């Protein structure tokens, strides 16, 4: 009786140990794949999936050891840094769209923000650049890692809009509204249609504008080259 009990105990212990070995082996395979991937940010994303698959705990399922967890963590950070060093737009977008940057990168954030803006400045302005342009715009609008610059932010937002980012008008409407430029805020509010519309803080026309100005701005909004209104709202009152 006792012998059988200990046999079962030994068998189950062996199963648990085998699970740990499996985690280690799997990590080695995942690391090799990640290091061979020429796209470092893609490798980082894959590593996250691998780690979840390998280390996510579950009944009757192998879980990796604490050491393997740490190894995944360190490797992910290393690959992420590589992606940033290689100026991967996707990595920069990921970094600056997080609520908080990784602590390891906090001290580099101002420098990385400058690099993001530089990348956006030299981007082609096509569809694939839209998110990069909008991310740079947000960084300049917020002023957390670089000095706030609403003019440059508006320029990046506008280029993102031309690159088919349809929610940008809501951001530009907010930007001008915060600057108390109600005419330009209305111009962009009028352009905020479809999936953008729900993002608007307000859909009302500002009380500071006259009916004639509001109609004039509606006309100006059809000219997609116009970003700011300034005195144009009064043009027909000449």
């Amino acid at each position, binding site marked *: 009786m*006792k012998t*059988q*009990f200990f046999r*079962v105990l030994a068998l*189950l212990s062996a199963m*648990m140990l085998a699970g740990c070995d499996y985690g280690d082996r799997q990590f080695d395979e995942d690391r090799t794949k990640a290091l061979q991937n020429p796209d470092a940010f893609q490798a980082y994303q894959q590593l*996250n999936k691998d780690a*979840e698959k390998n*280390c*996510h705990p*579950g009944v009757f399922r192998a*879980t990796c050891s604490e050491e393997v*967890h740490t190894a*995944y*963590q360190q490797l*992910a*950070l290393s690959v992420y840094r590589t992606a940033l060093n290689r100026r991967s737009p996707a990595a920069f977008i*990921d970094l600056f*769209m997080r*609520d*908080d940057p*990784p*602590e*390891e990168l906090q001290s580099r954030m101002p420098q990385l923000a400058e690099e993001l803006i530089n990348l956006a400045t030299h981007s082609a*302005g*096509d569809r*694939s650049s*839209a*998110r990069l342009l*909008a991310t740079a715009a*947000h960084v300049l609008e917020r002023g957390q890692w670089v000095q706030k610059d609403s003019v440059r932010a508006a320029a990046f937002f*506008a*280029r993102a*809009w*031309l*690159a*088919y*980012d*349809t*929610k940008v008008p*809501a*951001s530009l409407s*907010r930007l001008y509204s915060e600057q108390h430029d109600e*005419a330009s805020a209305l111009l962009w509010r009028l352009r905020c249609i*479809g999936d953008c519309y729900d*993002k608007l803080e307000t859909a009302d026309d500002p009380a*500071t*504008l*006259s009916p004639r100005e509001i109609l004039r701005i509606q006309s*100006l909004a059809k*000219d*997609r*080259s*116009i*970003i700011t209104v*300034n*005195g144009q709202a*009064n043009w*027909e009152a*000449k």
Partner: protein
Amino acid sequence: MNILVRVAIVALFLLQTLAVMAGSSTSRSSFKSSSGFAARSPSYRPSSTGSAPAYKSFRPESGSSATTAGGNGSPAGRVNSTSPGYRPSPSARQSLLNNSGPQPSPRLQTIIREKEASGPGWIGTAALVWLLSQHDLSDSDREWINSRLREANSDSSSEQPAPVSGQSDVSFQWAIPSHIVSGLPVKIVVTAVRYRKAVLPSCELDDVKSVPENNAAVLNWTPEDTFSAVASCRAEGWVDQRLLAVLK
């Protein structure tokens, strides 16, 4: 005996389960208490969806968090190109041709009408300066433009009234070619008016700075490797910007 074996199996099963849960707990807390990187990584979140890290939710939600492909807003507009079918007919008071005096050649009249119909921004001194920059003008047309330019600079009646308090008191007029093609030089002319007086704006577009010409700021720019650019002009503390789309 059987009872003992069953108890042992159940005990070991519970032991394994507890060990797995403990491992999970320690591993999560270890990521959280670590220097913070992987703790924010999607794979260490309990969600099985491989969800994204906590990303900024801009106020209101920004375009940057949106997928860009397949947007249905179709901002396919090009420079000064208005949406299809939008051809505002300038009011009679706005047209450069609304003058009881001598008229330019029929060819120039056609050009002016086409440009004025191309958008609300093409008007005023900037338009005249732009016309003047065209190389194939006859002497009489050139003289007509110059006379209109002198008129515009001296005629205070053509200026706008004071704007609503708090709004910009500077009006910028832009003359932008209707098509901007990559690799081909373009001339963009900008003028500004404040309280019935022309003010000289200062403009920039990428690395290009404007040069003054007849009370106008002129940008000579050759687009390369881009589908878009933004020209920014400043006058009397106000900033005016235009979005330029480049055809490849």
